[in-house]
């Protein structure tokens, strides 16, 4: 076979495979988006229908009739906000110190922290519940957030970033009599915007989607975050129609989906970097 024809065929085959998988990964989103504007009769019809008829917003209306739904959105946003802010401050400080300052036991401490990435969350679950309980912070978003404001992978990401900066910048600052803490505020932080952005985005995604922590540490419905609230509001026994659940799921997932679509290039690259070195 002529090599040019062969190459052509190879490219076509690649597109076929890529599109087949894209269909599998996207169709649940597309299907639920369409169904959220259908009546339940139509959404549950067999074979599946693709055009809402009649087009209806009733599912979204029913969803916001759930009194607590807006409250859960707010709680999730507060929780994600605290987690993002905490990680930006705490892990950039720690990452900077691990990368740029020397002190006894530095590498041992860093390895010890890194090893926590391999520790399954379930072993620490009950003890952490007891600690938070003793602190009187059960059913409080602050108590829940305390567990996640200094994420180890964020520390790792910040450290790697600070290690990648040229040493001369810090040397120059030191020669000018700038102490280590001052250098953090005036040199390291302003240079760290890309890494801070990455930490913020990953932590936002993690906090917005978190389930196990909020399920255990938040107790009363008005303090729930979206995933916990939805999982209870849509408990299997309460179904009469499923379309409001689909609408609720889409509303809850919208911030992460939009964020990802806007930042997709940056995010896919960033995760690749951390994954390669994890």
């Amino acid at each position: 076979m002529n090599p040019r024809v062969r190459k052509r065929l190879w490219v076509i085959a690649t597109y076929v495979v890529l599109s087949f998988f894209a269909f599998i990964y996207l169709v649940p989103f597309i299907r639920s988006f369409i169904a959220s504007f259908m009546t339940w009769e139509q959404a549950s019809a067999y074979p599946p229908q693709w055009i809402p008829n009649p087009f209806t917003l009733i599912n979204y209306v029913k969803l916001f009739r759930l009194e607590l739904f807006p409250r859960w959105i707010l709680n999730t946003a507060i929780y994600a906000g605290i987690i993002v802010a905490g990680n930006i401050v705490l892990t950039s400080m720690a990452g900077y110190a691990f990368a740029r300052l020397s002190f006894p036991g530095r590498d041992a401490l860093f390895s010890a922290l890194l090893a926590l990435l391999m520790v399954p969350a379930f072993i620490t679950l009950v003890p952490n519940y007891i600690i938070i309980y003793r602190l009187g912070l059960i059913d409080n978003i602050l108590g829940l957030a305390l567990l996640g404001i200094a994420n180890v992978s964020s520390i790792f990401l910040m450290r790697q970033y600070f290690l990648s900066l040229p040493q001369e910048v810090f040397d120059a600052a030191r020669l000018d009599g700038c102490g280590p803490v001052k250098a953090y505020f005036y040199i390291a932080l302003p240079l760290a915007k890309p890494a801070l952005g990455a930490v913020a985005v990953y932590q936002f995604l993690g906090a917005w989607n978190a389930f196990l922590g909020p399920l255990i540490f938040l107790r009363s419905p008005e303090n729930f975050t979206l995933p916990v609230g939805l999982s209870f509001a849509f408990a299997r026994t309460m179904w009469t129609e499923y379309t409001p659940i689909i609408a609720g799921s889409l509303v809850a997932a919208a911030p992460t989906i939009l964020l990802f679509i806007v930042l997709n290039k940056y995010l896919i690259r960033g995760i690749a970097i951390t994954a390669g070195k994890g």
Partner: protein
Amino acid sequence: MKPKPFSQLSSKPKRLLEKKKYREALSALLLISLAAGLNIVFGYFAMFFAFYLSFFKWDYIGPMEFVGLKNYEVIVKDIIRGLSGAFYTFAPFYTGLRNILLYTAIVVPVQTILAIILAVFANQKIKGVQFYKVAYFLPAVTCPVIVALIFIWLFMKNGFINYMIQFIAPGFAPDWINDKNYLLYAIALVAIWGTSGHFMVSFLAALQSIPRDVYEAAMLDGAGPFRRFIYITLPLLRPMIVYVVVMGLIGALQMFDLAWVMAGSSGGPGGAGYTIALDIYNEAFIKLRPGVAAAKSVFLFFLIFITTYVFQKKYRVLPR
């Protein structure tokens, strides 16, 4: 004349240097303390406390009572009951263990292989490839609870998935979520769908770090795309495969969210969706036996530790 090294300078600058070093260590401690402290308390202290707690009987309020290995006896008896065929409600831990091992045996290999295939195809330099990467990664940024809620609907008897299946296997239309023979497979499919895109990105990074000339040399030797994949790509991907499998094992063995939503906290029909993680949750927060829960979590810890350790030992090196 060569400048003298620092150590041979007169004592005054040396002391100054030491003072500077001391100051640096102090500032480092200041900067690190909060982040390290929180992780030591909620990570290491909690881990050791879990081991400690697993030897005690407690109800969260009253005094703790040392019971030796009693909590572990609960687990062993549970497994023995399960092995001798007790109904699933009488052997919850065994049920969870059996399910999670089957689930892991399905999910980890499939998601790893799928992630490699996706990465290899998405690594081609062709137009519009970013769109495909976004499509594959989208499930990974979506909350598992939400994914599970949507898939319950797609998995209904007259749902979309059965509709698609009848083009491939006519007549095969199980009631996935309500049939104890299919529930675990439904959960496994959702997990694979949700995480393979995430690991694809890891493989993409590894693929991009393979130098081009390796492939060019192979092409000159007349190796076709399949042989290049088998003899060059796969061996060079090995460290990343080990990493992805280890991360996959850690995730799969403590699967919780999907089972909670798709099967419910009691494991759904016939306990088919029950997992060790659900059992630990029920033990700790429903039955209020933190000691037994801690013993079960120690079991899970060693299950994860041993499987990942054996796997890494066999295939060596963690990517650095």
